[in-house]
């Protein structure tokens, strides 16, 4: 008998240092539950997220990638998240155009005070990606264990 | 399946010596002790840290050393920087030996040798020097002219002073580019120093160093009356395979990794000036 394991996705979350990472912290210290499948990568600003980061996350085995930053207008560096928003809009649209499931990518604006929103977003996202299953369309077989 | 030369051996770094501020010598042994493979003086090996890169490095220890191999590496690129950050006990991979060696088994037998080196260029000829020391009766006199930027940049300084200078028939001439406190030896560039020393024309010359040194020293030797057939050098270019297949280290129709790295200057004359 083959050992049938429940699929647990790997989620990479790029979180901006000033808002979303603090939001994640708050979620943790408030004992809000979100799945351990989420691996957080702290970035100085959502604007730091290069489209390559998103692709590389998929390459290294992510099944879903989410970018979280300060709410538009609240960027610590004034406008970083506005630029990031345009970039991600175009990149996600392109991934979709190439037939890569749209639901595997997401952008959410989460402030330092929104621990609950952080937990809720991650719960939702993990559920969505779990339903989609393993990332097959942007996978690098060499990186599979 | 037969053996494949692209597949390396893993070796353990058993000793690291800081030679100069940017040169370290790595002693490598097989996991069970002893050498990973036999080589001849002047041959090279591909050293690699998997995941970083692989590069051609000359084997600086003499084949007469039966316990280990040594590589002297100057810090200048991504692999060499990684090697410099390594600790004793770490493993690296080695494959080889590659290339043509210095003709110590035939043409150089019985000859008086003049060995000229600059900077890290002493590394490849060190294997010849120590081979000659261990086979003293097979060769004539040995003159070593070695120069570097400063006293601190002279590699194997301890070995030069304690072992080479005390070997009968060995004459070591050291020079540094600029005067320096605590240095009472010769000051000046290698090409001029060689001319000043006015070596005997019967000597066979082995030379290695930076391209500019080689160019001017060769010119000086020609002026003194040496023939190109008497002068050997060893070259280096970008290499990937080490076996004359990957196609990048050629100078004209010769592959440095396979047909070299040791060339006689009359052979180099046949090749285009692209090195």
């Amino acid at each position, binding site marked *: 008998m083959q050992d049938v394991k429940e699929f647990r996705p790997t989620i990479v979350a790029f979180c901006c240092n000033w808002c979303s990472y603090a939001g994640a912290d708050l979620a943790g210290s408030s004992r809000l539950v979100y799945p351990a499948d989420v691996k957080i990568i702290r970035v100085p600003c959502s604007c730091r997220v290069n489209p390559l980061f998103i692709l590389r996350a998929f390459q290294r085995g992510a099944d879903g990638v989410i970018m979280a930053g300060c709410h538009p207008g609240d960027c610590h560096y004034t406008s970083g998240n506005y630029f990031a928003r*345009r970039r991600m*809009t175009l*990149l996600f649209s392109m991934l979709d155009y190439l037939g890569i499931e749209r639901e595997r990518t997401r952008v959410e604006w989460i402030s330092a005070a929104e621990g609950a929103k952080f937990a809720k977003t991650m719960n939702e996202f993990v559920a969505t990606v779990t339903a989609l299953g393993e990332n097959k369309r942007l996978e690098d077989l060499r990186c599979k264990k | 399946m037969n053996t494949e030369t692209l597949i390396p051996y893993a070796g353990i770094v058993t000793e690291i010596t800081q030679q100069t501020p940017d040169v370290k010598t790595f002693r490598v042994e097989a996991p069970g002790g002893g050498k990973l493979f036999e080589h001849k003086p002047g041959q090279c090996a591909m050293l690699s840290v998997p995941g970083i890169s692989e590069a051609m490095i000359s084997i600086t220890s003499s084949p007469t050393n039966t316990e280990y191999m040594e590589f002297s590496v100057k810090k200048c690129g991504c692999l060499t920087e990684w090697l410099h950050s390594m600790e004793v006990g770490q493993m690296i991979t080695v494959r080889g030996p590659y290339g043509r060696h210095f003709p110590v088994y035939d043409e150089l037998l019985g000859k008086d040798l003049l060995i000229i080196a600059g900077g890290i260029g002493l590394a490849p000829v060190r294997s010849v020097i120590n081979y000659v020391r261990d086979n003293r009766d097979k060769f004539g006199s040995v003159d070593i002219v070695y120069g570097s930027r400063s006293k601190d940049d002279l590699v194997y300084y301890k070995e030069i002073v304690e072992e080479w200078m005390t070997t009968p028939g060995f004459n070591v001439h050291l020079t540094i580019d600029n005067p320096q406190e605590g240095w009472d030896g010769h000051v000046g560039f290698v090409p001029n120093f060689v001319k000043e020393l006015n070596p005997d024309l019967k000597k066979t010359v082995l030379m290695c160093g930076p391209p500019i040194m080689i160019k001017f020293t060769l010119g000086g030797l020609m002026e003194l009356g040496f023939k190109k057939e008497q002068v050997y050098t060893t070259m280096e270019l970008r290499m990937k395979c080490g076996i004359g297949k990957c196609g990048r280290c050629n100078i004209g129709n010769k592959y440095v990794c396979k047909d070299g790295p040791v060339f006689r200057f009359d052979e180099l004359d046949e090749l285009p000036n692209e090195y």
Partner: protein
Amino acid sequence: MQEMMKNRAYALLENGTVDRVLGWTRGEFAYDMTPAVFRNADEVKNGFVYNDFCAANLSKYLVKECRAGGKILVFLKPCDTYSFNQLLAEHRIKRDMIYVVGIECFGKADVEKIKEMGIEGITGITAKDGIYTVSTIYGDKAIKPADVMAERCLACKSKKHVVYDELIGNEGEVVEDCNRFDMVAKLEAMTPDERYEFWRGELSRCIRCNACRNICPACTCEQCIFDNPNSGVSQKAAVNSFEENMFHIIRAFHVAGRCTDCGECSRVCPQNIPLHLLNRKFIKDVNTFYGDYQAGEDPTAKPPLGKYEKNDIEPGEAGGAKE
């Protein structure tokens, strides 16, 4: 046309306005002209060729030529002038070192299409009275230029030169109904599975020769990220489907908002991958999300990825694709 161009080249070389001319030189066959620099009237006289097979966009060569000094004459088709303007906007070329002669364009011929018609053993092609006479070792064939026009020319966006010092032939107009986004829209209307299949079928042919990148007038980085061993993503060959996708997504992204849609990438692809469909997707998205923008039209315009609006569309809302 060729004679008029040659005469201008002579005149401008003679009177010292320019010291070099960037044009095309004859090939081995009737259709393989090579871009070339001519340094004197004799070279122009003996080597300069211009015909419907001179398809190369010469603007990228100006990056290199501007470093050589002197003043250079360049012949630009309407679509090439957009690339020229974009290079100017990015300070990759120097306007005062270049003398632009705009040339009227009626669309370029694609020799592949001639060969696809089953015409083999071509020994010569002549154009006269709106008909190409293709000589082959099996006899002559007459074909209509419209039947063998390059794909990009069929969807030509503009016959207007956006920059020139002088013009040979007539000035044209921007083509409003060029329908260049038709194929993009068609792909968008497909299901993700269909789109995935489509792009796998195309991109899996990629041999990573970098022709698309090296010909691209927008790809002028001194060192491409894919060539930089320190970038962590450098690759010489696409080892698997992921790397094929990554190269093309990132390349298209790096020229997003800067690509003028000159179509050179698709023209040079040895595997006939419709790479322009990636660039056009970005152009279409930019137009839809941030308002119409044509790179190269106005060298002083701010690029769409270098600015923002507070009420820009959210990534999650920017659907576009139907399930």
